[in-house]
């Protein structure tokens, strides 16, 4: 079976499970909203400082939620050894990787988009460079978290301390992506008089190319014996 067609089948399956239960998206939404609120309480009461850090708070909320989201995406595969069922179907492991990573990215992007209005209200920010640029930046950031996140979630899913292991493995890797996503989002919010946005977006694209390539190449080794 064609790798992309197989990936589409896996993605459709994950979206269908999400739609039937809606458990993951609801939990993520409330968790991320609580995180945004807590940042606004824990941070300074100075609104200019909150505005300055808004992009960072948004991405930290998405990052923390991503650990729950990607862990859950492999929990449903562990239940009844469903992942073995996919392997034996047989589905190409690269299709499984792409399907699950796309699904994770879509979920994180949706979550980030839903959080934006709350960020605007809580931190009193405006989108100086417009919504389309923000949506594009959020998409690149979600893809950048999902590519290494999916492969590490599959590794952690077999470990005893999986809930601790995933962030320990993932967060150090994501520093360049997080830095780029925060800076790019901050520029979209505050404006970009020095024309720096392109550089940060390029860095995000390079990160994506590297980690989607690595995930595609390494995932078969991760899930086979």
């Amino acid at each position, binding site marked *: 079976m064609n790798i992309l067609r197989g990936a589409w089948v896996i993605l459709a399956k994950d979206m269908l499970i999400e739609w039937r239960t809606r458990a993951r998206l609801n939990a993520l939404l409330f968790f991320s909203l609580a995180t945004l609120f807590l940042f606004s309480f824990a941070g300074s009461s100075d609104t200019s400082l909150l505005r300055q850090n808004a992009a960072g708070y948004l991405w930290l909320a998405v990052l923390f939620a991503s650990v729950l989201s990607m862990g859950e995406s492999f929990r449903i595969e562990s239940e009844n050894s469903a992942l073995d069922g996919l392997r034996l179907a047989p589905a190409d492991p690269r299709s499984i990787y792409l399907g699950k990573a796309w699904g994770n990215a879509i979920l994180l992007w949706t979550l980030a988009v839903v959080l934006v209005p709350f960020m605007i209200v809580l931190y009193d920010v405006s989108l100086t460079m417009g919504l389309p640029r923000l949506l594009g930046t959020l998409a690149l950031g979600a893809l950048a978290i999902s590519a290494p996140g999916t492969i590490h979630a599959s590794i952690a899913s077999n470990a005893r301390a999986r809930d601790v292991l995933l962030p320990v493995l993932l967060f150090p890797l994501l520093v360049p992506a997080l830095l780029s996503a925060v800076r790019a989002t901050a520029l979209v919010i505050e404006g970009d008089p020095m024309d720096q946005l392109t550089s940060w977006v390029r860095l995000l694209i390079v990160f994506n190319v590297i980690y989607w390539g690595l995930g595609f190449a390494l995932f078969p080794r991760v899930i086979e*014996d």
Partner: protein
Amino acid sequence: MPDPLEGAGLAVDVQDVSKRYGRRWALAHVSLQLRPGDSLLLTGHNGSGKTTLLKVLSTTIAPSLGAVKVFGSDAKVDREAIRRRVALLSHANYLYEDLSAEQNLRLLARLLGDDAQAQVPTLLDKVGLKARAAHAVREFSAGMRKRLAVARLLLKRPQLALLDEPFGELDPAGIAQMEGIIRDLKTGGTTLVLATHLVEQGQALCSRRLHLSEGRVAQQ
């Protein structure tokens, strides 16, 4: 005297296979040959290595030592070719709890190709789950899950069916139905490996027997 199976088009050719989990050898120097259409009863106490052998044959796990060929394909080199021809009915049922019975089968059918889609309603009817097709697997009893797992196996139209305790969790009617399904597979020329503690039922369905004890072939 030359081995009569040597050079033949074997369905299963296991050569001196061992599998180690940590320090424990779950399989030790197991060899086995099956011709297409053969049916093998696999017996042994709990922990004797039956499930491990079935997993090795299905390529779910790789052996630590030895060589496995299924229909001429080497399990180390071409797992996908083996997986296309083999189906495993295991203790794990490979089902998604939050999908319905029909959605679980349709997922597999999509991975297998368009021809399989048309079989889904027929198979749900065959295993007695037509009325519950739209219900989530989470609502199913253990016996119903087993029936759905059987439908999943049949959907693949396997040339080698590996059945691990196929009668477990089934009521008497289900057991009789399962026996019928196994007979149909045999009649259709499917090579069978059946692991069960119900030796009498197994012997009635299989032409050969292999007894495992502590991972080794004790009797063949």
